[in-house]
């Protein structure tokens, strides 16, 4: 069972390892807009969602795959935590 405090760290680690580093970016801030600099592309969005569903045992519907929900590490954490409450 993943603790709420760990959620952000896990997300940050995944985004860094899977997306940022392979594109030559060593660090990202939690409020940085991930889609702005091409860190995440159109296929990457779905890999990210699959990771969230598998790691945090949540279901992210297609209609929830929006800029507001996924634009930054902060936003993604918020999305995941809001589902854990249900």
């Amino acid at each position, binding site marked *: 069972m993943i603790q709420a405090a760990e959620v952000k760290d896990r997300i940050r680690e995944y985004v860094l390892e899977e997306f940022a580093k392979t594109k030559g970016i060593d660090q990202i801030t939690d409020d940085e807009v991930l889609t702005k600099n091409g860190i995440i592309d159109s296929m990457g969005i779905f890999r990210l969602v699959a990771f969230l569903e598998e790691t945090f045992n949540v279901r992210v519907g297609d209609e929830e*795959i929006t800029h507001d929900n996924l634009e930054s590490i902060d936003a993604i954490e918020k999305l995941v935590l809001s589902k854990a409450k249900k």
Partner: protein
Amino acid sequence: MAYVLQQLLTKSAKAYPDKPAVWARGTSITYRDLDERSNQLAHLLRQRGIQKGDCVGLFFPKCVESIVSMLGVLKAGGVYVPLDPQAPADRVGYIISNCGVRILITNADKRKDLSAETLGLVEACVLTEGNGNGADLIAWSQLSEFPVSHAPEVTLVETDLAYILYTSGSTGRPKGVMLTHQNALTFVEWCAEEFKVSSNDRLSNHAPLHFDLSVFDVYNTLQASATVYLITEDLALFPTSLGNFIENQKITIWYSVPSALMLLLLHGRLTPEKLNSLRVILFAGEVFPMKYLRQLAEISTKSDLYNLYGPTETNVCTFYKVERERLAEMEKLPIGIACANTECFSVTPQGKLAEKGEAGELYVRGPSVTYGYWADPEKTHKMVVANHFQENFEEKMYRTGDIVTVGEDGNYYFQGRRDSMIKSRGYRIELGEIETALLSHPGVREAAVLAVPDEIIGNRIRAVVAPHIAGSLGVLELQQYCASRVPKYMIPELVDLYDELPKTSTGKIDRVKLASERAGAMRA
């Protein structure tokens, strides 16, 4: 009849001054605004030394100011060079240097990405937003000091350059395709006739502005006094948001690469109601798998569907209007027949016209064809060749490198490439450009880059590398190195490290063997 692109704007601004011309992120500007702001920008550029034929770079994320900038540069007699805002600084710097960009229109944020060396090459930067210190910086607000009512006096003809679009180069550096007003207008006029674009139309712009699909979105909008809806990066990556956007903005004409449409189909929660306003759907840039095209056809019953084909060097040169009644039995989608004012030939390796059923390379002639690559006479002579079928005078034609056949139905069908250029998500990628990037790494002894077919995006990129010293290089390291040289969509997703690459009997890298060996064995 317009003979330079900016006349399309002037005419529409006279007829429909208060109509929205460009929409982005929920706000829009009118034709009057677009006309006046671009006049002001043109005067500013002239005052800062821009003369006819000078290159002005555009380096910022897509927004209303992008369109103002394009038209402002044209009105100053300049040539605009759209630079991919997501490309690495090294690549952008190369392009700026290669075509001699004199003034760069950018924003404070993107300007920081560029090296001091690159910035030293340009005379001034116009900032669409943000501030900075420096005598070479011009704030967007300074536009207000210049006249609104007319553009500067410049003598232009249709064969003057309008823009340069850089595409992947096989020998390692991107090459700049030079495009004149006539090149663009030939395409725009054919589109206007074929799709009957009117002032009631609402065109989306999905493609980045450095990609020639956007030429239709922007200039056919201006030609018809319609409105263009810019799809910015906050929308582009989110299929459900895109589906809602089409419905909410009542888009009537959509043009994009097939993979964008496929993502919409698979994840956009599309319904026929959402696509109600769409009367024309155009796609180009890569092969559209029949399976997904049939799904699209089912859900978009109100739309005409068109497959458009053509390299940047000619813009669209052939087209096929989908015959819905044939979709069920069709195995492969044709690229169709030549557009108006364009002629295509299929030529055998012996230089003769191919017979029906015989494969040949597609050549294109007509006023849509580029004069060549900026400052690259060698590549130009290779691809823009003498038309030996023309006996009466000297004329050029462009060899596309695409192998085609003519079907029973009289349509051209794409069979494959003559070389190692591939498409991935509609992006044109020379595998050689990625190989050159890898080989430039001091630790790399050998490198080969291969395409791995993918159902949705066309191809994934796989690199096979043999370092000088076994075990000295890591996958991530190589990907990061590539990231500093090539755009993100060219970074190899799969990297296999070998001690030595397999060779054929003639000593060349055996790509067939590499392709058959399991890919991704050592993926990070």
